[in-house]
């Protein structure tokens, strides 16, 4: 089963990290759950009670096909429909940079759940920095493939930016797992050498 997960999420190492972090039997909500692959495996392998939020009709159909409960919703409208502490884990993968107000969403996430599992695209990554510094252009990388004028990523941040925001909002960073091809360097200087980073934050 784990093999199948790794195969299905070959392009999403952040989700595999999140999968490993989540404890068995948790109540999980995935904001922007896509086709529901992560939730499916959390349900089947870790016996989690799961729920997804998704805006795309086609992806909702995919979730229903997998038997994953999913709710049509726009994250910019907040999580008002979900009562306080109704989940153990809330997942937000590669999405924070695309919402209208990342700070508000973060607060909302911490309201509905004990812990948040967030994978962040790091614009401080060396591949991006080099493009800005030397070419003087907005970066185009593997995780940010779209040019600036049509990207959905309107609120990009670095790992340091995100950590400052968590500090300002009073949230505790429990875990920080950089995802990078430069494993060793990314441990030393995550903000420079990791393309992505998975955070676990709590109140």
């Amino acid at each position: 089963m784990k093999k199948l997960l790794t195969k299905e999420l070959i392009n999403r190492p952040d989700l595999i990290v999140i999968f490993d972090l989540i404890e068995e039997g948790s109540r999980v909500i995935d904001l922007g759950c896509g086709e529901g692959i992560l939730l499916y495996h959390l349900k089947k392998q870790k016996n989690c009670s799961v729920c997804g939020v998704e805006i795309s009709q086609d992806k909702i159909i995919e979730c229903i096909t997998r038997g994953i409960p999913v709710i049509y919703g726009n994250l910019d409208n907040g999580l008002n429909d979900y009562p306080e502490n109704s989940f153990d884990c809330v997942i937000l993968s590669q999405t924070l940079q695309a919402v209208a107000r990342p700070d508000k969403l973060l607060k909302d996430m911490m309201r509905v759940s004990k812990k948040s599992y967030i994978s962040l695209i790091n614009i401080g990554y060396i591949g991006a920095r080099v493009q800005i510094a030397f070419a003087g252009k907005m970066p185009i990388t593997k995780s940010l493939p779209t040019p600036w004028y049509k990207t959905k990523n309107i609120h990009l941040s670095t790992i340091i930016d995100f950590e400052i925001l968590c500090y300002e909002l009073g949230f505790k960073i429990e875990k920080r797992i950089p995802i990078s091809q430069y494993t060793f360097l990314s441990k030393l200087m995550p903000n420079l050498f990791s393309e992505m980073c998975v955070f676990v934050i709590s109140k």
Partner: protein
Amino acid sequence: MMHYCTTFYFFNILPAMESSKDIMEFVKEYDFVFGEVPEDYLVLDCGKKIGPINIRYETYGSLNPERTNAILILHALSGDAHVAGKHSPSDKKSGWWDKMVGPGKAFDTEKYFIVCSNVLGGCSGSTGPRSINPETGKLYNMSFPVITIRDMVKAQYRLMKYLKIEKWLAIAGGSMGGMQALQWAVSYPDAVKSVIPIATTSRLSPQAIAFNWVGREAIMSDPDWKNGNYQDKGPEKGLSIARMLGHITYLSDESMAKKFGRNLQNMKDYAFNFSYNFQVESYLKYQGQSFVERFDANSYLYISRAMDYFDLSEEYDGNLTKAFESVKSDFLVISFSSDWLFPPSQSMQIVSALRNKNLNVSYCNIDSIYGHDAFLLETEVLGKLVAYFIENQFKES
């Protein structure tokens, strides 16, 4: 041509019929009568009791030996028990949700046993205002008690018991059918594994009540209505106006623009008169006229009133979450983006209340230009959602 495999039996009396899938068969109508003695009367929300009651129903597919594959489909205001297929070769039209119900379709009659019944108060076989009141030997007409959505569901529950079904795998319905589906989950939480409320609401909005009012006013101000005591010729003008008004609320600005534009009907220029000039006028006129042929005016009054009174949260100070207190079912809630009669926001309220109860709920707002009518038209996306949802429900059962 539709090929229909319909079971002509219950309780496995004629299991041999099961093998006749390839033979073209037509859908049969059944009648279930209850409440023939006063103790068995149906107690209505208005406080009155009524009996005997006939419920007209149709079935499709066959019940499995474990009796776990039964699905109840509930019709909307102007619908009936004839959800799919044809009654005879001379039938011009198939049932009202034919694209959704049949072999290999979303409600797959090769896998599931589908039941659809005409509502209490209806005019397509079930007891309603144009039935004979056994006490007087005359038509009930306006002496028929005012019924509610919950009363309709109570009658369906009797049918369920009669069919010896303990639990529905799914209950699905659009519009007023969705109201009944929600009511089922609240009234009989143990009898419903899953619910599919489509293009519906947990309480009828003042706007929808307003449209119903005008529709009824059109009927009741028609001199042919005669306080409900019309003979063969009913208040045709009034009923057709009610239908035309209703039909406008089922469409959307965009779908009307796309379907008719400002096109003229059989003329090159304005006729400078008040008969129908525009295609949209001619369409509405046709809709109104054809409705009169198949629907009864008094039934329209009673059923639309039942919708007005529908408010699940009424007994709970407007708190829908409290109304769902005892609900156990899984849900697939569906709305349509351009539906302004039962707008997506009203489905979202249902979803939110169900989520508050930590129930297993899915929700899709289908992108469509067809307005409220989309639940009858957007069968491709709707079909996929319904088929996969039920399949997973069936696997779990």
